[in-house]
């Protein structure tokens, strides 16, 4: 079976007639105005509860309010080693991976204004699966981390990808039954994003 | 005053056989638009049935014959987006590997036009003198829409016909299911596509279905006749040339 590689490469090379030139760089239409506002507006369209907060001090109350709004217990999962330094009075914090009916609070390193997208490079304190395990994800984002487009995220990562980079634009959904959209297919049924302005 | 442009009319095989009036309507409209019209006797079919079937050798021969018959004219005008598209878009493909003929094919393609777009875009015609006191829906053939870029022109001209009202189809993009030999090879699929188009037409206020391609119209009329559905079908050129009083397609 080791012959496959050379045979395939040979098949490609022997048949090729011409080679197309390196494409011109593409420049997408730019997002105008405030990036965080544009981000919030676009993500809100996708059934996401986006809240603008003045400071990190407002996060605990917002988390509690999101949980109440979903009729969920005041209990969240936060990854061990998470960079989120949150004091959540009255909220039980668990460190093990969330189950399919749990809520998780996650830290968002970057967000993309063009499409209203959260960008999660996996790493220490940022386990990738946590964006898919819970039924509710509450994501905490600093407004200054909203970049115009995906290309900017790639630049900020310095050309080195983490093992997994997850781009998330809304709660999990499916249209597989009668082409009708239903939320919560495998990943979270609800997504709340707390955008902290300073 | 400049000399009248010499226009070669490519009649199309279906107009020649089934609906000669479309040819005479085209001649009348072109003369009204100040053209000198000639109809080369050396024309038959554009060769599209052979090309679409992959019978390339036949297509090459027929395309050469058409190019030779028409390359001397200032313009070539075709009362069909489909046959026009064959000459304009596909003749250069037919001769992709034959440089001498490719140049001739491209030259012919550059001066080939669908009838109604020629009248409006090249001759600047903004209206016609004709009467037709009926409501019509317009079927755009796929080749008119996507190969020849014709959509506004038939509507502009039909809109100038005295008494005529247009009530548009809901779906103006989807094929009617003719497709030349497709209609013979896959009759049941073609039937479903025709029925969808006919249902759309019957849901309008129109009593007449019109369009610029006789192939689609023959197929749709043939299907309606089989089902006993009474929608009058006519090529748009007949209405524009004030020949709408003649029996419609498939009417005794």
């Amino acid at each position, binding site marked *: 079976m080791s012959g*496959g590689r050379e045979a395939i490469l040979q*098949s490609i090379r022997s*048949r090729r007639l011409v080679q197309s030139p390196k494409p011109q760089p593409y420049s997408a239409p730019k997002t105008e105005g405030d990036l965080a506002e544009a981000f919030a507006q676009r993500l809100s369209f996708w059934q996401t509860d986006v809240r603008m907060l003045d400071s990190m001090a407002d996060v605990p109350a917002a988390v509690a309010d999101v949980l109440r709004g979903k009729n969920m217990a005041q209990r969240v999962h936060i990854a061990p080693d998470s960079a989120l330094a949150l004091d959540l009075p009255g909220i039980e914090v668990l460190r093990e991976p969330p189950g399919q009916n749990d809520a998780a609070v996650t830290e968002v390193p970057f967000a993309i204004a063009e499409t209203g997208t959260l960008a999660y490079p996996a790493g220490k304190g940022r386990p990738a699966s946590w964006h898919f395990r819970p039924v509710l994800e509450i994501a905490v984002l600093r407004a200054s981390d909203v970049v115009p487009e995906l290309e900017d995220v790639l630049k900020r990562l310095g050309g080195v990808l983490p093992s997994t980079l997850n781009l998330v634009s809304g709660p999990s959904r499916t249209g597989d039954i009668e*082409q009708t959209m239903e939320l919560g297919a495998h990943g979270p049924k609800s997504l709340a994003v707390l955008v902290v302005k300073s | 005053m400049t000399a009248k442009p010499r226009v070669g009319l490519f009649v199309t095989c279906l107009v020649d*056989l089934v609906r*000669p009036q479309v040819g005479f309507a085209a001649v009348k409209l072109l003369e009204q638009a100040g053209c000198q019209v000639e109809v080369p006797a050396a024309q038959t079919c554009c060769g599209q049935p052979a090309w679409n079937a992959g019978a390339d050798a036949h297509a090459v021969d027929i395309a050469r014959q058409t190019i030779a018959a028409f390359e001397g004219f200032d313009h070539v005008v075709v009362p069909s987006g489909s046959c026009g598209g064959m000459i304009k878009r596909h003749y250069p493909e037919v001769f992709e590997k034959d440089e001498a003929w490719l140049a001739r094919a491209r030259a012919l393609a550059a001066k080939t036009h669908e009838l109604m777009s020629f009248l409006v875009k090249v001759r600047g015609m903004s209206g016609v003198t004709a009467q037709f006191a009926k409501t019509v829906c317009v079927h755009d053939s796929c080749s008119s829409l996507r190969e020849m870029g014709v959509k506004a022109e038939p509507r502009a001209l039909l809109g100038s016909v005295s008494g005529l009202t247009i009530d548009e189809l809901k779906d103006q993009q989807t094929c009617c299911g003719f497709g030349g030999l497709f209609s013979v090879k896959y009759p049941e*699929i073609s039937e479903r596509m025709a029925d969808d188009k006919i249902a759309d037409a019957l849901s309008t206020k129109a009593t007449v279905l019109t369009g610029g391609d006789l192939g689609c119209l023959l197929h749709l009329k043939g299907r309606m006749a089989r089902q006993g559905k009474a929608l009058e079908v006519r090529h748009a050129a007949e209405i524009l040339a004030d020949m709408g009083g003649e029996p419609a397609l498939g009417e005794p």
Partner: protein
Amino acid sequence: MNLDPRNFQQAAREALNDPLLRPALGRMKTHFGAGRAAAVARYGDFEALREAGKAIRDYAVTHLDELLTQFERSVVARGGTVHWARDAAEARDLILGILRDAGAKTVTKGKSMVTEEIALNPFLEANGIVPVETDLGEYIVQLRHEPPSHIIAPAFHLSKEQVAETFFASHTDLDPKRSLVERNALVQEARAVLRRSFESADAGITGANFLSAKEGAAVIVTNEGNGDLTRLLPKMHIVVTGIEKVVADMNDVAVLLRLLPRSATGQPISTYVSVMAGRRGADESDGPQAFHVVLVDNGRSKLIGTEAQDVLRCIRCSACINHCPIYGAIGGHAYGATYMGPIGAALNPGVMGVENAAHHANASTFCGRCAEVCPVKIPLPRIMRHWRAVEHSKGLAPRSITAGLGVWAFAAKRPGLYRLGASVMAWFLRMMGRRGTVHALPVMQGWFAVRDFPVPQGRTFQAQWKARRQNAAERIGLEGGNSRSRQQR
């Protein structure tokens, strides 16, 4: 269920008579068709985006060897392994070998058309490994032992009642009196059932929408998140994909990501885009500990340098399928192949052989809608026509068609004979006509099977034109030769 593309005509007839298929196809048109149109209208210059996508894919298709070897180096540098499979059998064997080496018994699967193409699931089952599809649509059709009927909406042809029946029959450990009337109840049941599979699977297999050569990453787009749980929860992640999916780098992927969901479902971006580069890092608490990529050729490389090469640009968005009036009439199963609609018609004859997939190339009116909506501007009708020419030149076309074309072409190359023939035909059809149309003839039976033929108006145009010219000429002769505009030169 049609599993043979040669059986297309019969399967198409059956599909046309399927009463449940029509409403499903109608929904497809309104959802995907209207969705794409709205998304394109909202984007700035979508045409420029299509051109950029085409250029990126053209570069990739014509540099596959460089990009694939670069991709391999990048994957290896991140601790992964790349495998190369010449054909379906080799791919199946490779995947089985990887799974056996890891002692895997159960496998969750993200959506992958390539694993459909290589018929991986029945092969794994026959070898004692249980594959579980996790994309909801794929899961439903797997339970029903059906192939997907659409490349991105595998179960669109089913009603929610049919899905409920399937779940009642399959999830026998659940309360038989539970309600599965609502669509969301079905979705939640699948979520719960499949979560157990994710948590217990030994390995996860996904496809890839793109491979990025520079970074050694596989990229998938999903709305459900199933692909991510497939990758992230088991110990091992295997990506199975076609060799043509590679592009130069993530910046190219970023451009294509603007095209793919808009063209597919009308979304500006899918809910999840997952860039998967190798196994978990040393400081990460989850993710796979082993990462394999199986690159499948299976007839793709032999399209390079042919008239069908452009089909390799395809990003499998399904826009051509969603806008195809033929697919819109018969759905996906009638094709009897993994890839249906226009992309199938352009790809299958090249990969499966013209003798097997000729119907796919022939069952098109060349309406051109597919090429118009293709995000990477593949000239689909042109490629279908190429396969028809191959079929014709190999003498594989039906005799009735080639013989009829031959007679017609003989006359069409001889204008005098053609005019005579047309005149005879016009006379004959008028003789045969009743009340304006001809109802049947011993030829063109396909035409007369479903429709009449309108009777010609009279003599042919050419005959009438000649007569008018002669009359005019005689009149001119009598009147002393005044030149008239219609005078022949």
